[in-house]
């Protein structure tokens, strides 16, 4: 992945682009289930304070006008929507939670379009 794959100001997230960018919500949910606690915590704690500025930046344009850098940043935010629940809400319950969540299949998401 290029060193400039994300908009300026979000360089700290570059290392997550290859592992946390997905086309569908089902893939993001699956990645959460397959992740380790360390992967989740590093991603979440690196990104949590960048989410608000990232949304401010991305909200400046309609979604369909985002360039490739902005699309990658959006994709990371969507993965964070899932990982944030694992880290912030479930905490050390996540392994037990993941066991049950494997039975719930996302068949369609408005973000897939």
């Amino acid at each position, binding site marked *: 992945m290029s060193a400039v794959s994300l908009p300026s100001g979000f360089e700290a997230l570059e290392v997550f682009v290859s592992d946390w960018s997905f086309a569908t919500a089902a893939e993001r949910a699956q990645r959460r289930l397959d992740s380790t606690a360390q992967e989740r915590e590093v991603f979440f704690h690196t990104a949590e304070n960048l989410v608000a500025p990232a*949304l401010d930046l991305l*909200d400046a344009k309609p979604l369909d006008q985002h360039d490739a850098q902005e699309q990658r940043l959006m994709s990371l935010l*969507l993965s964070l929507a899932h990982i*944030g629940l694992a880290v*912030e809400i479930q*905490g050390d319950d996540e392994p037990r939670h993941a066991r049950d969540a494997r*039975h719930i*299949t*996302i068949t369609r998401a408005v973000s897939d379009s």
Partner: protein
Amino acid sequence: MEESSTQDHIELDEDTADLGTSPIPAAPYYQPDYFALEVEAIFRRSWLQIGHVCELPEPGSYIVREIEIADASILITRGRDDVIRAFHNVCTHRGTQLVSECEGSRSRFSCPYHRWTFADDGELLSAPDFERFYVDKADCALTPVAVDVCARLIFVNLDATPQESLAEFLGPLATELEELPSAQATTFSEYTYEIEANWKLTYDNFQENYHLRFIHPRSGAAAAGPQNPFGYPVNFGFHGTHRTQTIWSNPDARPLPFQGLAFVKGAELAMRDGFGDVTRAKQYYAIFPNLFLLGSPMTPFSQCVIPLSPTRSRGVIRLYWNGEDDCASRRFAREYAMATARDIHSEDRAVIEAGQRGLNSGALTHIHFQSQEILCRHLFQEVNRRVENWRAERDAAGRALL
């Protein structure tokens, strides 16, 4: 609408007294004989929510939905005249299933076997070498299924002559449903689960809060508090065969930082979209037999608990949205809302299955509902009344033949 205030203890009144307080027989939650009666008494003759108008976005759109327990496949079309119709997905020549796709857009449907071709209003348009048949084309239209729409939700009724219209079935609740976000939705997200559990046992999980603190200690933290440790509803409502509850939420609960950001973004957009009136936001509707709807504009979900066998069901949860994602915050807030709802639902599944395994053993002759599980009791009574009525009807018909 009849309401019962429920913070401490439900006092049975004239509207709820006939629900009783007795233990409930366990057999209806696992025995095949009772399930077979439910299929006939309820699922073959009640209005069942099967889709949403947004799945038929333009004339020519169609969807096909299976009702497995009735061995029925239903073709729902939006005709060139914009009318929504439903038919058995069955060619009237020799019964071949007409359409194999789940959805699409076309105005004609040709049977793969002998190419009988039907219009989207069900009329038989053409059939090869039809002169050799002994019937008129006009008598070969697709078999219609009763269909109607409320709040953009599509309902069908497998009874060839439904005993009541959808409006009569929903009663005054129809007006309330029209005010929910789903009534304005143009798209949705969806997740599903299959569960080794009876449909009522599964459904009951989602109409009592007694379990919240034990099964959802983290994901449901804001739904309980010191002043209401079990997170019991503010009130219950009984509307004929349907029921409602007003959800209680802890006014002192503070969201965690990331959670709060997602909630704030969702709330800001809901306000901008005109959902500032939150009259219905905490209203949770249990529409007989197997549909739930939540009025929240931020988590506007429905759940349909579909029976598959006496001890197997499928849950279909949808979050209905008005408009496609137009900005990053909307996309992010919707993704978080869906993932949150999915987390909560996923926590319920295993314990419901554990309950089913216990009932399957036959160890219990009865189960018990406390006063805050009155909606479960109401569902059972409504189901059982229909089963008993149908059984009496069937027995009377049998005697008439003797």
